[in-house]
């Protein structure tokens, strides 16, 4: 699989590490969060059959993180719109 690094271009998958689906953010005020919401933050991640927003890091290249959208059925990747991810 070729992964488009926003800085280095298309590179082999072996140069990257997977960061998983884009997680939901850290709860702004954790003290006010109940068990169910805390469980969602800790253990639940998107797992769609189709478009998935996910993080990769170019470990064997520029070592920067970025976000792409990949189709989990076809592996087709839509590059990040902004390089910062």
């Amino acid at each position, binding site marked *: 699989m070729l992964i488009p690094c926003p800085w280095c271009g298309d590179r082999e998958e072996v140069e990257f590490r997977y960061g*998983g689906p884009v997680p939901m953010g850290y709860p702004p005020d954790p003290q006010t969060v109940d*068990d169910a919401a805390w*469980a969602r933050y800790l253990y639940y*991640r998107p797992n769609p*059959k189709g478009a*998935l927003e*996910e993080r990769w890091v170019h470990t064997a290249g520029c070592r920067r993180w970025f976000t792409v959208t990949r189709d*989990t*059925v076809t*592996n087709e990747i839509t590059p990040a719109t902004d390089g910062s991810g």
Partner: protein
Amino acid sequence: MAEPHPHPQQLWRNPEPKHSYDVVIVGAGGHGLATAYYLAKNHGIRNVAVLERGWLAGGNMARNTTVIRSNYLWDESAAIYEFSLKLWEGLSVELDYDLLFSQRGVLGLTHSEHQVREGKRRVSANQLDGIDAEWLTPEEVKAFCPIVNISPEVRYPVLGGTLQRRGGIAKHDYVAWAFARKADELGIDLIQNCEVTGFDLDGDRVIGVHTNRGLIAAGKVALCAAGHSSALAAMVGLDLPIQTYPLQALVSELLEPVLNCVVLSNDIHVYVSQAHKGELVMGAGMDAYNSYAQRGSPHVIEYQVAAALELFPIFSRVHVVRTWAGIVDVTPDASPIVGLTRIENLFINCGWGTGGFKATPAAGWTYAHTIAQGQPHPLTAPFALERFTTGALVDEHGAAAVAH
């Protein structure tokens, strides 16, 4: 090696779906078929359909490396996997079908201090749970499996290993077909090419399923969809703490008998056994990314084969004949999710991930009980979805690791 005994002429009918059933099971993998069988056999519930989007047992059931063992760390897991192993020990007779179940021993090699400690701890835990388990030194490993390279010169030398002598392998197709044949004989409809596309709800209660072959009414609906569980649950707005990944395996050409046991190595991602026909069956590591493609990346296979060759130099000229992938449903604690849901009459059985083949008979037995009684079976009660909220996880990363 032993000739498989000729299998029966007729395995199951191919009925048209009826308009309604007492129980509809979604997914005709090992778990769905075993559940159907035990619903009829143990609970007398026979007005049951098993709906399968593709062909019977064409998912992970036909793609796994068939390792069977029960040496898990925690009491909860040891209890269900040991119950399963005991069912395996009588299953060929029970189903009147030679499943080629072979208790040739499962050797779990270790190559790091951490794994040695984990392995010894698990052997002790298993013994306290009444499960057969032994710790072997490298020399004892060599005596048990002579073709393993225990040289200290290699990159990851063998530092010892766990052995469960009652562990082994079985022929996955036969297991599926045997459950299917018996379920069919008991009157259960096995319906292939029937994809569930949605659920018919009455408030918070499920009353049927939408399929590509029309609406089918159901008293109860039981999911057994392995890698597709998140997608199905999402159809009723139910989120599951599951990630779906490709898991790959390969087979070699046919060889004379050369490997007498199952060898697993979590550190270097090797697991290998020799099937009855003579091919080496090897499992690779999981691909890193979420995927429903039933296709993995070649470098994962390359990595696996490199490690296997260091462990078994004798395999260096063996040809790989075929590689493939299944898609596995992985939970945060590497333990399954089984039980009731917040939708009345909708049950889930999923999250068995990389290791649910060995659980097939026990999963079917306990899930049938859960469906019939509307209550969790005591053996699977610890594996309810609620554990992610209460925090009572059953962390089996050490015993389950990547493999089987």
